[in-house]
């Protein structure tokens, strides 16, 4: 593909450098003209954008703009009425959410969706579900392979526990943990899958400033250390503008802006959507 070829989003398909000097990598995932309708309600109408390797991509917009619906389309929970999802250069056929997970996507939820009866450790271990290979018979006997596999995955999970600084609550049932820690465990569970793309649905909702700072640091570290591509939805504009490399702005199911935080901040349509428009 030559540099001249453009993607549907109007930016080069090849890696490029933005006006403010950010390195933007190859296209990892691309939404092509996604439309999602529920009966007569149009949740998303004709939206296209891409997610590039190694970037932090934010999706913002006022309440009811269709951000969460977009994330649900990406994670395979909703099937778009029209449009295509391309992943790693090929069109993704219609698949179940667990198959999407196996392809290398992991996500967190706006309202925490942890397994409340299980310990922190078990929750994060469940995140590695897609990487477990032993069959039921081997597990029933708990011989050699099953035990070895458990040990190996435990090691990987312990690294995540260290990374997120939650060693002390390893064996605590997550139902008993405070909100901020639950959010952190949920991030851990998503990280455990070692995803290519990590989807975060309002990772900082309901947090105080200190917790937000912690969470921001974790998100940046994940992006830096593991090179994970991140797509996130967030309401806190300060956080979004500081964290993300590129931003998609949605309003009433339409895309009204796409670009670096600076570009988006100066986009008239975006300003109108957030601050309101004068009607004469």
């Amino acid at each position, binding site marked *: 593909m030559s540099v001249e070829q453009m993607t549907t989003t109007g930016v080069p398909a090849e890696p490029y450098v933005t006006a403010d000097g950010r390195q933007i990598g190859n296209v990892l995932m691309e939404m092509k003209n996604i439309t999602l309708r529920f009966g007569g309600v149009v949740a998303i109408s004709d939206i296209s954008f891409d997610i590039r390797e190694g970037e932090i991509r934010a999706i913002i917009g006022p309440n009811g703009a269709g951000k969460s619906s977009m994330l649900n389309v990406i*994670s*395979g*929970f909703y099937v778009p009425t029209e449009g295509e999802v391309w992943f790693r250069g090929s069109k993704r056929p219609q698949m*179940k*959410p*667990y198959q*999407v*997970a*196996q392809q290398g996507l*992991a*996500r967190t*939820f706006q309202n925490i*969706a*942890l*397994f*409340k*009866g*299980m310990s922190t450790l*078990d929750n994060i*271990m*469940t*995140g590695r*579900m*897609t990487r*477990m290979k*032993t069959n*039921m018979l081997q*597990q*029933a*006997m*708990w011989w050699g392979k*099953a*035990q070895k596999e*458990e*040990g190996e995955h*435990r*090691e990987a999970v*312990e690294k995540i526990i260290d990374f997120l600084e939650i060693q002390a609550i390893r064996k605590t049932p997550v139902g008993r943990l405070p909100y901020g820690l639950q959010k952190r465990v949920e991030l851990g*569970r*998503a990280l455990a*899958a070692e995803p290519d793309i990590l989807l975060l649905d309002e990772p900082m909702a309901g947090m105080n400033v200190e917790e937000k700072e912690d969470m921001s640091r974790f998100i940046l570290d994940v992006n830096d250390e593991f090179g994970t591509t991140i797509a996130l939805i967030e309401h806190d504009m300060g956080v979004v503008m500081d964290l993300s490399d590129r931003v998609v702005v949605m309003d009433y199911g339409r895309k009204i802006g796409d670009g670096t935080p600076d570009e988006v901040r100066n986009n008239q349509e975006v300003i109108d959507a957030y601050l309101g428009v004068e009607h004469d």
Partner: protein
Amino acid sequence: MFYREAGDFHTTYKDDNQTFPIKFDRIRYYVVLAVAFGVIPFLINDYWANAVFVPFLIYAIAAIGLNILTGYCGQVSLGTGGFMAVGAYACYKLMTAFPEVSIVFHLIGAGFVTAGVGVLFGLPSLRIKGFYLAVATLAAQFFLVWLFNKVPWFYNYSASGQINAPERTVFGMAVTGPNTEAWAKYMICLVFLTVLAWIARNLTRGTVGRSWMAIRDMDIAAEIIGVNPLRAKLTAFAVSSFFVGIAGALFFSVYLGAVEVGEAFGINKSFLVLFMIIIGGLGSIFGSLAGAAFLVLLPVLLKNILVGGLGWPIDIAAHMELIIVGGLIVVFLIAEPHGLAQLWKIGKEKLRLWPFPH
């Protein structure tokens, strides 16, 4: 004082993952096993075997089975009695069709047959949840009992409509039929319970168990992190039915010897096993054992106190027994909704700190 984990360090993940990570627990576990295998068989008599130990062991297997489905995977089932009947009739058909094969294989085979039937009746769980699923499994209960009454092939066209266990031996000792020694009945049930409980523990602590619990706690999130809900639910139904089927087969062949399906495997049985896991503790192997022991022992104990101790007439005692057991269950559920397993856990926490709780 005596219950300490100080100095008990785990340096590998394998150590940390043990079923009994505290040394004291581990030793107690081996002591219990040693007594169960090495002492009780020599002391047991017919009364203790038939009234207490054999029903306890068999119900414990059924309770573990149902706990896998309901406690671990969150799928409520009222079809336990029906699945026990499948195990019993499968065992009977296998025993009479292949008399030269060891009964052990018949029992295991009965488990597999029940697993298949369980998967079949588990299919609705992919679409419906909670109470609605309970009603669907209730249909399984009534259908299966009806089937075994209606189709003479299942009871080999016998005139009475009953099935009778012929005499079968293991290592030369009779384990079914009228000439069975008390200890032989006890031993075969104990061996099955021990092995099955060990398998249940292994399954529930690994990937399979986590996928069941994930489905139980938050099925949408489970699916999104890569749990195949179809697989998780159907394996839970299969494993659960396997256990329940073996329990049914043992109940018929070793414990009762002769069975009329409506009486032995009616809806009462489904509720009894469900109460066992609720009282014992959902999502706990130990809870299954504790619940089975509680509901098997309590009536025996009450009977001994009321009839033997206070000299009441048997019919009044029988009614009082129902009232007391029912009342106790209600009190119990209000006081400790998480069951005996939770009480046990709290007790252990207290003991760890005793006598200096602060």
